[in-house]
């Protein structure tokens, strides 16, 4: 099988660049999977044996077809890679791809026989589907504004890449009790839903400027939502991997394996208690040798070089030019206000490309849109891109005086929706339209709710509002940590939806509270409207829904939803 020719990538996009060793590894891994598929077809592997192997290569069996989930390491992409994803969508899927809350992309209409060729096409741009599924360490997620955000203390991409490499085909942690998700951030502001992860890392600096890590453990969603608890306050850089090894080893040895719903590390930490778990981790650390696990500064330095700042241009009067453009065009001003974020470099901003058109499918992008965004990234952002855990795309470094031209390009591609972080920027899982585990549809509910919320937003300006929808209790749509969470349940064979209020994913993390009995498929969008109208009636000026809810409690919302007319 000839390998796909290597596709050059934009010079200044800061993705980790493979060298000959990494490429050799990837080619070997694809060869291994090709052989595993052949052995499965020849009956040498049972389905039970094959399943974990295909999952570790990102291949899932869904309701109607296979789904291939491609890793976007910590959500960092370049334009050549995105263009190639567009090509894959066109050639082997039905012309689109779906960006996920794990900052990955999945192709929902994959033929098993096409998979090796798809993996070759990915390898041509240093991409793969390794460990996007299965009971192993998954793609580490990070802040979509990493390396750009004005409030960043240390660049989390460097350590996310180190985690990616370290966890790749880890010999000890590839057959864990359950999947294992790590998130890492480098700012105080938590934009990564830290505490919903098995392990959450915050990169910090001590008074002398040395890097260390705050580590939280035991978060997770699913039927038992738990927020991660503090484990270590400041792990020195050199001990980072050793500490991760110790945590994983305790989990691998003691995590439950009989009951899938009790197998995540959150249950182990809860059952042992934070101190009990910490004690076991420290026992491991006390005995593990130091040298082989030491994260050497030269390694960090070499990886850091991949993420060096791109060649920024002097700010000039970029800010003034932007101000003039926003005055001239209110629609552009609205987009700038909602979809851009402050940059550490004067004269620059990060721009969010919403994949949440009102009435659309959250996270979906067509091949043509991927190609259009790749072009825009090359023109305006050094060819660099991010996927956010909220299923949007980000151009991390755009000069302020080029935002207007970018926005016009986005308008032409149908990608200029101004709603980042707003009520219509809904996270929704694939639900019953694709997922074999679903109780109910998520996508059409999301489409209905986005229309309702958008209409309210236009007259009442709701501000930051997080609505998240899961099609079953596995909670892939993060509904537990939504301001308004919606969970699909099965009620006597019919789709029904429970609503939780008051959850949040970030620095004010909380698990939402169930407001009352479920709503039918037809009634749920109307219920959300009632909740928001109640909020509008009660809010202090500028108050977010979640703050109103936390201030006034459930009663008025219950009343609005359930009181007989």
């Amino acid at each position, binding site marked *: 099988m000839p390998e796909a020719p290597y596709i050059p990538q934009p010079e200044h996009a800061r993705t980790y660049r493979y060298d000959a*060793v990494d490429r050799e590894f990837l080619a070997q891994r694809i060869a291994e999977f090709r*052989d595993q598929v052949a052995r499965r077809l020849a009956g040498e592997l049972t389905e*039970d044996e094959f399943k974990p192997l295909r999952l570790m290569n990102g291949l899932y069996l869904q309701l109607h077809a296979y789904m291939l989930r491609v890793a976007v390491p910590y959500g960092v992409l370049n334009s050549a890679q995105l263009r190639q994803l567009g090509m894959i969508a066109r050639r082997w899927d039905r012309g689109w791809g779906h960006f996920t809350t794990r900052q990955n992309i999945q192709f929902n209409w994959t033929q098993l026989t096409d998979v090796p060729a798809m993996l070759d096409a990915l390898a041509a741009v240093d991409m793969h589907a390794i460990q996007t599924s299965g009971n192993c360490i998954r793609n580490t997620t990070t802040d979509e504004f990493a390396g750009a955000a004005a409030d960043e203390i240390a660049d989390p991409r460097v350590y996310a890449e*180190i985690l990616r490499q370290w966890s790749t085909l*880890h010999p000890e942690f590839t057959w*864990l009790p359950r999947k294992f998700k790590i998130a890492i951030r480098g700012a105080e502001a938590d934009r990564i839903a830290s505490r919903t992860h098995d392990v959450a890392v915050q990169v910090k600096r001590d008074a002398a400027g040395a890097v260390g890590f705050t580590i939280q453990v035991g978060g997770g969603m699913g039927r038992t939502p738990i927020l991660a608890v503090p484990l270590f306050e400041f792990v020195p850089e050199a001990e980072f991997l050793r500490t991760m090894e110790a945590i994983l*080893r305790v989990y691998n040895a003691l995590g439950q394996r009989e009951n899938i719903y009790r197998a995540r590390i959150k249950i182990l930490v809860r059952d042992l208690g934070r101190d009990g778990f910490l004690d076991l981790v420290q026992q491991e650390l006390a005995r593990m040798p130091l040298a082989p696990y030491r994260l050497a500064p030269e*390694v960090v330095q070499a990886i850091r070089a991949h993420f060096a700042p791109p060649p920024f241009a002097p700010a000039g009067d970029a800010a003034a030019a932007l101000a003039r453009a926003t005055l001239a065009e209110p629609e552009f001003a609205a987009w700038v206000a909602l979809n851009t974020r402050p940059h550490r470099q004067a004269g620059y901003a990060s721009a969010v490309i919403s994949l949440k058109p009102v009435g659309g499918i959250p996270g979906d992008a067509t091949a043509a849109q991927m190609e259009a965004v790749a072009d825009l990234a090359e023109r305006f952002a050094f060819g660099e891109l991010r996927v956010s855990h909220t299923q949007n795309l980000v151009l991390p470094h755009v000069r302020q005086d080029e935002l207007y031209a970018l926005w016009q390009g986005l308008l032409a591609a149908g990608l200029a929706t101004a709603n980042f972080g707003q009520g219509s920027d809904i996270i929704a899982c694939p639900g019953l339209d694709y997922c074999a585990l679903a109780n109910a549809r998520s996508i059409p509910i999301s489409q209905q709710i986005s229309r309702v919320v958008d209409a309210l937003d236009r007259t009442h300006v709701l501000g930051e509002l997080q609505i998240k929808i899961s099609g079953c209790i596995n909670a892939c749509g993060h509904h537990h940590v939504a301001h308004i969470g919606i969970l699909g349940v099965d009620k006597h064979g019919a789709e029904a939806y429970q609503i939780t209020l008051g959850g949040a994913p970030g620095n004010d993390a909380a698990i939402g509270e169930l407001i009352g009995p479920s709503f039918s498929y037809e009634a749920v969008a109307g219920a959300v409207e009632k909740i928001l109208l109640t909020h509008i009636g009660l809010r202090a000026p500028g108050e977010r829904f979640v703050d109103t809810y936390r201030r006034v409690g459930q009663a008025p919302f219950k009343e609005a939803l359930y009181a007989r007319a």
Partner: protein
Amino acid sequence: MPVLEKGALRADDWQVVDDEAALPDAPVLISLARLLRDAALLAGRNAPLGVAIGNDVNPDVLAPLLPRLALVQVVLPKSRDGRAFSQARKLREYLGYTGEIRVAGHVIPDHYAMLLRCGASTVVVAEGTDAAVWEASRKVVSIAYQHGLAAETPISLLRRKVA
């Protein structure tokens, strides 16, 4: 059942002995319960001694007895139950065990390279196993991205050549 060691099959020269049966003067594999119960008696024994541990056993319990043991057998009751990987690693890495670590149970060729990197020595395989399939699987990925216990040569960054 045959044993796979360094790419070749050989006969199993260890005899599994029940907890109450007399121990022959030959290599025997006994349970952890018996090892702990009869530790004093076994101290005087000269023929090789091995113990089979379940996947829920913390290898720490073996620590005082390891100098007496020539074989520790770990097990994968299901192919996706990876506790044995950590047991092997602890034995090798800080319990100081240098004898044979043998892996039994539902082991597939795709486990092989990783087991070796966790410190395992041998695998109990089914009759009729083709050792070449296991060797091919062991060698297919020759680069690793983290510290392991098989023979390996550092390359750069975290990477090493393993196969």
